[in-house]
């Protein structure tokens, strides 16, 4: 929408917007993260929610322990193969619209522990990741910047058309396949093969 007439009207006390902008504005400013810390990055996530960095400014201070009440999963820390089925199951239990931030190099690609027999080389092998935040661990400011990028991404989502988000697309997958424990490794389909 053209901003100039909008601003003039707002100064007069009349707010004009579109359904899309209003819907996205409500969603992006009240992202409730899942209280889900795996490893070291979780401590920086906690520090981001503390008084100095204050994630509450962005509407995201309500960390919900239950996946049914959360809409953002910040995967912070190394995902081991033993934990991977639980992570995917938790994501499946979250109601749409839901987002994933891969925080830290372990969640992006396995990190310093990549060549380990129990380490999953990145959560994007099983979950669709929206934002990647590199770092080991990323500073709380980096997490806040990732959150702002996610908010901008949500603000720019068109609700109709081929680029509409997953929850408005009847053909998009509702649940993601959960890996299972095999005798030597995890078994189960992946979203894509590790490059």
């Amino acid at each position: 929408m053209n901003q100039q007439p909008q601003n003039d009207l707002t100064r007069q006390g009349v707010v004009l917007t579109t359904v899309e902008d209003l819907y996205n504005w409500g969603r992006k400013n009240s992202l409730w993260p899942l209280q889900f810390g795996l490893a070291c990055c979780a401590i920086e996530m906690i520090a981001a929610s503390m008084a100095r960095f204050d994630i509450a400014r962005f509407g995201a201070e309500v960390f919900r322990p239950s996946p049914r009440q959360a809409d953002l999963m910040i995967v912070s820390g190394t995902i081991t193969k033993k934990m991977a089925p639980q992570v995917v199951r938790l994501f499946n239990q979250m109601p749409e619209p839901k987002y994933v931030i891969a925080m830290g190099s372990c969640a992006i690609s396995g990190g310093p522990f990549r060549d380990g027999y129990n380490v999953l080389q990145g959560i994007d092998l099983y979950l669709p990741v929206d934002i990647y935040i590199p770092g080991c661990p990323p500073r709380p400011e980096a997490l806040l910047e990732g959150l702002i990028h996610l908010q901008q991404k949500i603000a720019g989502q068109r609700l109709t058309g081929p680029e509409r988000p997953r929850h408005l697309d009847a053909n998009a997958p509702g649940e993601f396949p959960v890996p299972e424990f095999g005798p030597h490794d995890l078994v189960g389909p992946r979203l894509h093969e590790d490059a």
Partner: protein
Amino acid sequence: MIAPPGIQAPAAVDSISHDLLEVAMGPHHPSTHGVFRMNVVLDGETVVKLTPVFGYLHRNHEKIAEKNSYLASIPYTDRLDYICSMTNNWAYVLSVEKLTGLAVPERAEYIRVIVAELTRLFNHACLAGFLLQDMGALGTPMMYAFREREKILDLFESLTGSRMMCNYMRFGGCRCDLTAGWLEQAATVVAGFDSFLDHFEALLNGNEILCARSQGVGVLPAGLAVNAGVTGPGLRASGVNYDIRKVDQYGIYNRFKFRVPLGRCGDVFDRYMMRILEMRESLKILGQALHDIPAGAIIDPKAKLRNLRPKPGEAYGRIESPKGELGFYLISDGGSAPYRYRVRPPSLINLTVLEDMCLGHAIADVVIILGSIDIVLGEVDR
């Protein structure tokens, strides 16, 4: 429901049949200790059996260390007990110094003591915050504790470049010297910590919810604590006087005057008070160290760091980390990577007695008892 082996299924009372309920607490759980799982069997609300399940953060640190050089393993030690990276570094470099016989200059020893005690300060403060959060004080003590932690992390960042994963110690010394003004800033932080502790204690120690929920809960007898290998504040809360800083006197701890607080009955309240009292003793050590630190080199310029190949042999070095006895057992076969690299994790071994402490208590107490043990999953699972 069929009772698990070894458990007596409860008898029917007044023709109401009872069942045992098995609950899996974790690995995703609101208590802020990481991916830890406990399979708890309950009779109503009382814990009848508790089986911990580990391995959700097993990152095969020991296997990776067998491929890396000795120097390359130092950043991995940061990520063991990820809240206290400096003490992890120290335990590892101490073991390598025992393996190779390297000497450490005096200024480096003082710096090591200063950063280790600063680490102990914020670890214990954060533990008090997490424990109170588990009890229901959602956030406020933690906010105060993290505020102090941020001040100390600023010190670490100006010294090492990183807030958490400091990667600071080296074999035979430290990586880089203190910057100008660092000692004054550290002295300011230490001076302000006393009043923070007074404030913290005034708000918390007499709080009736804290006292009601923690006194008499999770008692750990001294004999069991010693036999089960419990170390650190949990052991001293049961009345056993064993602090590795006093027993082994590693580094230059024999130069500092400080006391070792001991508890009386080993319940959750004693373990909480241990942390508060140990913070006061750490402040004393810091005051002395910041005053007495000499000028000089922080590492021998000829000390070999890269491509270190110790002679074949083995060594076990340990320190008193904020969680307990953190030890590293290294076997060298003359190569550039250790033949065997083992971390003795205090958090895992302190959990040996988790079931003993929780039996007979309500399930709500399990969270408190776990919180008082002070575990970090990076160390439990490695």
